[in-house]
């Protein structure tokens, strides 16, 4: 009953005209980002943070989360029509989606993708409602050692699943942590590695760093690699799937919702892995696996449902524990801190308008996306035809103005460009960028938790092994590490291909 009352309260917040506008803006921009290659969700989120600083925290979070799940919808459009995923979470959709488009069934592919996304997204909100408050109550038992172990665990998961080299992932996350130490020491207030630059006193700005890493570097790389975008010219008709399409898709949709949501709740997993797992599962349990890869509608429904369900799942640890699950949620988490809202177990109690407003907005946003996506597919296709040379320049100009407008400081622009170059070199050397963002966001929290733990234990690192919850997280991390070392030898990727 209390949950229903809270949800009604949340709808009261979300249905305010201003918040409806921000929700619409978020899902619209998200879809746009998903459709258009070149910036990605983290970069788009970072670009919009300076604008959101002027509005109320609940409105800002509604808009930022709208971008997160809106991009999941948009990514499928390019996967199906162009065979180029707008988002990493839509990579596997290309396999069957593009073949369907070539066979003249682009409409049902786009339709089932939107429907699956809607069902997955909506059901994952129910999961969020169920698990987030319970997890928050449980997390109240966490002290600094438990938080430290949980953060180490989530970083380890992200490193294990991202990229081809575990060592490179680890290096990037520790480099991110090291960059996070720049600025005032959180406990004794000493300036660290600031070189007396005023713009570094508050630390490396997350927004500038992310715009550089994900926005600028992507464009710089694209200047060297020409990707031809052939939009398959076909009349998109019959967006509503047939009865047979539904029969083939409905169970994959429900199974993928479960996979997406539960994997999404595990810190570090993110939204990409669930799409591959759900596709793999459907292929494995299918009566005729040979249909997959040849334009089978379940091959579109499963990953598209999974990525939206996972996007909902990622909000559970973010809102209830204050632990991000990937680069995008790390940025939203950083944004919450900028707004003065502390994510974690006390969020629901201390900022109910943010939590319940966001939950209600997820329902409304998913409906908006369904309405937005099906009739506006023609518009997205037209946007895909905008020449990339023009688009890339406009994105760079937005990056410049966006980073300047954070503090009205030219130093921020230079910091952004430096991070752009770091991202460019890292990508060319096959280093993943997400662990660095993760480290940058979690670094200060990790440091505070470690130092407090050591003060509590009088300098003994044994505290992480003697407290049960902490021991569980550390234990799983060690098992993961040993398993990877013993069974999956870390291989250094020498070539780009």
């Amino acid at each position: 009953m209390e949950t229903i009352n809270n949800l009604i309260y949340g709808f009261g917040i979300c249905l305010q005209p201003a918040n409806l506008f921000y929700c619409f803006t978020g899902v619209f921009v998200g879809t746009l980002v998903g459709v258009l290659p070149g910036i990605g969700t983290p970069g788009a989120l970072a670009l919009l943070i300076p604008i959101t600083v002027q509005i109320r925290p609940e409105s800002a979070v509604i808009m930022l989360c709208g971008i997160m799940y809106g991009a999941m919808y948009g990514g499928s459009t390019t996967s199906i029509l162009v065979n180029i995923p707008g988002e990493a979470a839509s990579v596997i959709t290309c396999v069957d989606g593009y073949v369907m488009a070539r066979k003249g069934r682009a409409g049902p592919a786009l339709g089932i993708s939107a429907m699956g996304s809607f069902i997955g997204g909506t059901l994952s909100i129910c999961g969020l409602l169920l698990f987030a408050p319970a997890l928050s109550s449980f997390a109240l038992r966490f002290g600094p050692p438990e938080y430290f172990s949980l953060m180490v665990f989530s970083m380890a998961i992200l490193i294990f699943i991202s990229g081809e080299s575990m060592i490179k992932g680890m290096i990037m996350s520790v480099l991110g942590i090291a960059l996070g130490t720049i600025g005032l020491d959180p406990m004794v207030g000493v300036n660290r590695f600031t070189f007396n630059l005023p713009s570094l006193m508050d630390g490396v700005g997350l927004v500038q760093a992310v715009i550089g890493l994900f926005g600028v570097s992507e464009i710089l790389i694209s200047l060297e690699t020409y990707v031809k975008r052939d939009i398959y010219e076909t009349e998109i008709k019959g967006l509503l799937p047939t009865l047979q399409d539904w029969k083939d898709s409905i169970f994959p949709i429900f199974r993928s919702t479960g996979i997406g949501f539960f994997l999404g709740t595990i810190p570090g997993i993110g939204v990409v892995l669930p799409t591959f797992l759900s596709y793999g599962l459907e292929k494995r349990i299918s009566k005729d696996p040979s249909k997959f890869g040849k334009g089978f509608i379940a091959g579109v429904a499963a990953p598209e449902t999974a990525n939206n369900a996972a996007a909902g799942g990622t909000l559970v640890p973010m809102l209830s524990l204050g632990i991000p699950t990937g680069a995008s949620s790390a940025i939203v988490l950083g944004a919450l801190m900028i707004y003065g809202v502390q994510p974690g177990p006390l969020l629901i109690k201390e900022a109910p308008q943010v939590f319940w407003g966001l939950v209600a907005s997820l329902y409304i946003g998913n409906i908006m996306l369904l309405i937005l996506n099906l009739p506006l597919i023609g518009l997205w296709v037209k946007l895909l035809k905008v020449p990339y040379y023009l688009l890339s320049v406009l994105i760079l100009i937005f990056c410049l103005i966006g980073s300047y407008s954070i503090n009205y400081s030219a130093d921020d622009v230079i910091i952004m460009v430096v991070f752009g170059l770091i991202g460019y070199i890292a990508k060319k050397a096959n280093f993943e960028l997400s662990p660095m963002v993760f480290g940058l966001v979690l670094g200060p929290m990790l440091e505070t938790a470690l130092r407090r733990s050591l003060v509590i234990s009088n300098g003994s690192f044994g505290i992480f092994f003697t407290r049960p919850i902490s021991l569980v997280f550390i234990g799983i991390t060690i098992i993961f590490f040993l398993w990877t070392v013993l069974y999956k030898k870390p291989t250094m990727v020498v070539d780009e291909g």
Partner: protein
Amino acid sequence: MLGRDAKIGIFLLFISALLCYGSIRLGIGKANAPGPGFFPFLAGLIIAILSLVMIIFSAKEAPNHTQQKGLLVTGRAALVSGVLLLFGLLVEKAGFFICTFFATLIMLRANGIRKWPFLLFVSILTCVGIFIGFNLLLKVRLPLGILRFGGQ
């Protein structure tokens, strides 16, 4: 001949040494009372260990130089990076209009656009669009620089 990863590893070793040195200067403290340099020192140490592992693994693998891309920023990427840096250095003095106009113009030209009327049209349109969007609608105060008339 060192492979690309080995070179990166050596560079990272250098970075970790700087980090550790800076941390020691800040004061590492003791385990029961960690100082401001404690955590960055730990991070520097881990980077050093991981870099060494990377160098060792890289040495075991025969470097395939034909498949390795250079890491230096060259060509169009270098030109665009330069434009972005110049924008940061000049925006407050020269102003948003001039910097955005030239940045758009040069970057479009770097992208292979040769028609001057189109280049000028898009560059002016970008300046005006950004000004309306950011300055008028979002109330972001963009620097006018040398175009600041009448003490504004």
